């Protein structure tokens, strides 16, 4: 694996005197996929927001210089009749050519026959299905070729088949572009199949390392407070 692009040391985030994320340490190398796992309320999204510099924190977060970060939020509430087309949304903060847009749409699994992409770009953003919208959010983050992608997995709304293809998509992108990804995942199977490293978070850091090395029964029990590792082991791909 390549050079180190992120180093996090003793990262702590406090809200109203309560430590929501406590003493987190990890590093990320170019081309790696890192999954952040943990129960609801474990501080996973808070960790992301700290990594993005959206909230105050203590400790150090050191990104490689001039790194371009693409961010896919967990969900966005856009009103159904918000007057904004898909094409307009994708180019709100970044310029992009028609060709690049088409290429990215294809990459995220939004492609059809004939002039489908063009029609899709003119669709109102509020009228997309959840799965389509999630892919549009990913497409948005990919414009301008980011070096690293922060992907906050949606808990609901995207059906299982949709979810699987999104991970296959990451795999594909990773092979072609050496994209570095940090993803928040609720699914331990995904972690086993798609990621190089895993960071277990439950307020404090429970584990960090290769999934098959660090995700044992004991860790999972500590993380979730119950033994759901059985479920994870049944699922082999």
């Amino acid at each position, binding site marked *: 694996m390549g050079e180190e692009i992120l180093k996090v040391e003793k990262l702590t985030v406090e809200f109203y005197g309560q430590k929501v994320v406590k003493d987190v340490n990890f590093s990320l190398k170019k081309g790696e996929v890192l999954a952040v796992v943990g129960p609801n309320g474990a501080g996973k999204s808070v960790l992301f*927001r700290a990594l*993005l*510099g*959206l909230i105050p924190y203590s400790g150090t977060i050191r990104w490689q210089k001039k790194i371009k*970060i693409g*961010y896919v*939020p967990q969900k*966005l509430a*856009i009103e159904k*009749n*918000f*007057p*904004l*087309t898909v094409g*307009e*949304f994708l*180019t*709100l*903060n*970044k310029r992009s050519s028609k060709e690049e847009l088409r290429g990215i749409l294809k990459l995220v699994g939004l492609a059809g026959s004939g002039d489908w992409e063009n029609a899709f770009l*003119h669709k*109102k953003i509020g009228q997309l299905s959840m799965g389509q919208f999630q892919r549009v959010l990913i497409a*948005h983050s990919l414009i301008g070729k980011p070096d690293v992608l*922060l992907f906050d997995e949606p808990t609901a709304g995207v059906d299982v088949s949709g979810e699987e293809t999104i991970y296959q998509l990451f795999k594909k992108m990773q092979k072609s572009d050496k994209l570095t990804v940090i993803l928040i995942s609720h699914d331990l199977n995904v972690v086993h199949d798609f990621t190089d490293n895993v960071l277990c978070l439950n307020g404090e850091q429970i584990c960090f390392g290769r999934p098959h090395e660090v995700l044992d029964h004991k860790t999972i029990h500590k993380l979730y407070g119950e033994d759901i590792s059985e479920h994870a082991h049944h699922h082999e791909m």
Partner: protein
Amino acid sequence: MTLNYTQLIPAIFIGLAAGYLGSFMVLRRMVLVGDALSHVALPGLALALLFNINPFLGAFSSLFIGIIAVWLIENKTELSTESLIGLFFTFSLAVGILITPREDILDALFGDISKITTTDAYISVILSIILIAVMFAISRKFILSTISSDLAKSSRVKVGVLNLVFLILVAIVVALGIKAIGTLLMGALVIIPAITSRNITSSLKGYTIVSAILGFISLLGGIILAGQLNLSPGPIVVLVSTGIFLVSLLFVRK
């Protein structure tokens, strides 16, 4: 009432600016903010009348102070903009009513474009053009931050600065509109064209352009109609724009 170009030309530009800016205020769910802010202008307007300085300057000054205060308190406390505006709105209306000279109170509340001076006309046109240009320049980043401030911040958009610039633009457009249709009714000029346009358009570009055009049609049409009927223009402008809104319901695009 006779109308001349000194009144009609500023009306075109103020209408365009109010409609255009209003389209963004509606997306930001700042409709009532605009409405309430127009009342914040009243004390400044009153002071300007008392000391015989340009009413636009007075209105803009008190709006500017109000907006900075809202922005600061908003950053300091967890109170929503909406509740703060509620506070400023009633406070300023109370102060404004107390200090506005009695004979000027109707003009302040409902406006009177026939009293616009040539200087005011120039100021209105120039400010309207600047306002539209600045809003256009920040529009994409502003929409992104409206959809998600996290997404905007992660793309290195300075959301705080953007919000302040936007609030200042709102203050300017409200101050401009007060001359034309008064503090009480100015809210209508930023709200109604935008929600009408939202009924009939689907892209951001279409929505903002149509809103601007409807703003100018409402203001100009209202003023001309009021002139012919010899009525006060403010209420007629609101009636015209409401009429267009009702017609737009027939063409709603879902």
